[in-house]
């Protein structure tokens, strides 16, 4: 019963907090409205999201977020340098297949988003069985190395976070 009413309790909490942050004030009315949204939205979308993501190591998640933020800053400089100083003819764009060890859909989504936000790579597609990601690299003289770095830097950490 409780599980039916709150299919994603953490999402309920998150939506309430986001609502309060959007209102930029903590008031009783804001909390009530936030809770209404926080309960209604997970209920309305429960059909598309049958399983709860299982998170094993919340502290590792904080580490992962810091690493990704740092990589986003780094990637801005790398992409800016390529745009400004690499002549078109020297550019080596490449497609890379990244085989996945992750199985949870939520974990794969986080990985795909991370790849798009970080140095010179964009996630283009996922294989129909969810076992590989198709990644496009802006400038990759060594495509195999890019796939290895993604697996080593991000996927291994996500594997520890999502049980």
């Amino acid at each position, binding site marked *: 019963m409780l599980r039916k009413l709150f299919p994603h309790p953490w999402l309920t909490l998150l939506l309430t907090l986001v609502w309060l942050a959007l209102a930029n004030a903590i008031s009783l009315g804001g909390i009530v409205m936030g809770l209404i949204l926080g309960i209604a939205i997970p209920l309305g979308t429960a059909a598309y999201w049958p399983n709860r993501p299982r998170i094993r190591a919340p502290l590792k998640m904080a580490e992962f977020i810091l690493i990704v933020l740092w990589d986003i800053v780094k990637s801005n400089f790398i*992409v800016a340098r390529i*745009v400004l100083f690499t002549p078109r003819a020297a550019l080596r764009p490449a497609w890379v297949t990244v085989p996945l060890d992750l199985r949870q859909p939520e974990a794969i989504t986080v990985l795909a*988003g991370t790849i798009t936000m970080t140095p010179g790579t964009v996630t283009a597609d996922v294989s129909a069985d969810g076992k590989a990601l198709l990644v496009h690299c802006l400038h990759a003289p060594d495509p195999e190395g890019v796939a290895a770095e993604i697996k080593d830097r991000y996927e291994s950490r996500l594997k520890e976070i999502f049980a």
Partner: protein
Amino acid sequence: MTDTFMLIMEILVSGLIVMAGIFGLVGSYGLLKLPELMTRLHAPTKATTLGVGGVLIASMIYFLVFMDQFSFHELMITLFLFLTAPISANLIAKAHMLRELQPKDVPPTGAACGWSTYDETADPSRQPGE
């Protein structure tokens, strides 16, 4: 003391805004310069994150130091930006794959199924190329 502090903060805010402007400009220039859609996709998803981020951080510091108020809105904008940028990039890439590319143009999955954009097994009623 407070005067020096205010000056440093002013320089910091100005510096962040100028840096953000430069990154925004580079991102837009990238759209112009890079050769085809998939490479063009890289410029706006990356270079502009720091462009928008710089303005948001500058805005937070400005309101905190000069207006004595703290606003969560900048954090929310950052959050929504990080959520939406990868998804729009993904959808643009998928549309490009369907319209302009063939399955032979991209590397194989290395798994049993093809890429979900091309794979017909998921939905047998769909016609190839549709």
